[in-house]
């Protein structure tokens, strides 16, 4: 067999045709190289302080939603506050992981009660919990309050119920707690600074 000039051109045309086919989209698209969408674009930013150690790093909390009435705020990212003079935007491994503290599966969500000898928690309403706790405290205080000591000195103390105060709660909570504890005459009262 001999290839004539005409046949040769036909072959060439076929070759060009198939490669054009490639150009027309048979090949994968020359997609733009796009970076991942910047995830904070329309989030709400709230300034806060890291609750762990006492360096007191400033943090920025980013939450979904614009705080509109029907939008449920969901914290989705936390990073350092660059304006803060101490941490200047940096965070340590604990601070950098705060998001998972906020969303820890071990967060408590409702009041619980464990009866004496019981093996399990049961749900209790806030109102019942407060009422029952207040009753237990009052019973104990009324029974064991020491108005005067053996020498007859006024001492007004209650030492059969104690309290340990938080180390990461705010000053406002701490102040209120201090005020309440002393008004009850409580002395068995300490905070995490002790250990």
């Amino acid at each position, binding site marked *: *067999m001999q290839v004539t000039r005409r046949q040769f051109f036909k072959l060439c045309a076929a070759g060009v045709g198939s490669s054009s086919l490639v150009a027309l989209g048979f090949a994968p698209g*020359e997609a733009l*190289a796009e*970076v991942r*969408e910047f995830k904070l674009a329309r989030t709400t930013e709230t300034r806060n302080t890291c609750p762990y150690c006492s360096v007191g790093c400033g943090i920025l909390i980013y939450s979904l939603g614009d705080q509109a009435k029907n939008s449920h705020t969901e914290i989705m*990212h936390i*990073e350092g506050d660059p304006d803060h003079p101490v941490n200047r*935007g940096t965070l340590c491994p604990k601070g950098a992981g705060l998001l998972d503290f906020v969303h820890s599966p071990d967060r408590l969500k409702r009041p619980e009660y464990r009866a004496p000898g019981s093996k399990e928690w049961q749900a209790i309403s806030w109102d019942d919990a407060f009422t029952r706790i207040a009753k237990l405290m009052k019973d104990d205080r009324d029974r064991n309050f020491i108005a005067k000591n053996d020498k007859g000195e006024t001492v007004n103390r209650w030492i059969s119920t104690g309290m340990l105060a938080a180390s990461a709660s705010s000053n406002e909570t701490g102040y209120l707690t201090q005020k309440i504890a002393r008004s009850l005459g409580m002395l068995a009262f300490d905070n995490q600074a002790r250990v």
Partner: protein
Amino acid sequence: MALQSLDIKARSATTTPPPRARNPVHVAKLIDISKCIGCKACQVACMEWNDLRDEVGTNVGIYDNPRDLSDQSWTVMRFSEVEVEQGRLEWLIRKDGCMHCDDPGCLKACPSPGAIVQYANGIVDFHEEHCIGCGYCLTGCPFNIPRISKKDSKAYKCTLCSDRVAVGLEPACIKTCPTGALVFGSKEDMIHHAEGRIADLKERGYANAALYNPRGVGGTHVMYVLQHGDQPELYANLPKDPHISPLVSLWKGVTKPLMSLGIGLAVFAGFFHFVTVGPKEVEEEETD
């Protein structure tokens, strides 16, 4: 640099050059090992920003955890206890992760167009939606960085937070680093910064302090300041002279086009043999 970071310098499995007229700032991350306390904040910030969560593993008798890079851990600390001088212990802690080579072996090895891109600012980024999961990037990387996910068979590694850099922010690890062991800026500035650090280290007795910006891969956009620049292998086997394996570079360089040509030539040879010599026909044979 904003959107210009989207300009592309190189693209995997693409034979023609991308647009090159613009020339944005080259960025770099500098890891000053002499300032690193191994706190792993960068690991957390990386996972948090990129919405990754590695397994809660086990302790195997060392501090390194997670033990290795994975699709969920794009950076890990590698702890080495060494006595460079007798009786003087040093705890060298190296943040391992993608080096963002100027001449990226992963990109060279990748067969899927656009699965790996190198932005004009120097960031080498994996685009998982184009990744076919072949694992060739592993063979191209001189630093053993990319990891194939067991979940989706895609390759993952540090993006140098290309999404943050694209909007003018620093990468998440840089921002979080408590001691400033990680810094980020233009590559030029980072080299300058490193020079200052090296001078300081030399004053403190580290005569061989040096910048790790290996030539073999064209320099990197993640560089280290090493106290012992003459012995990078002390730092959990950081390669002394990394380069793309010749098996990959040669292979992906000229060999494959030549071989493709060889296949083409074979077809053409047959064709021209046919049209010149003609078929072998047995005369007596009848046609169907």
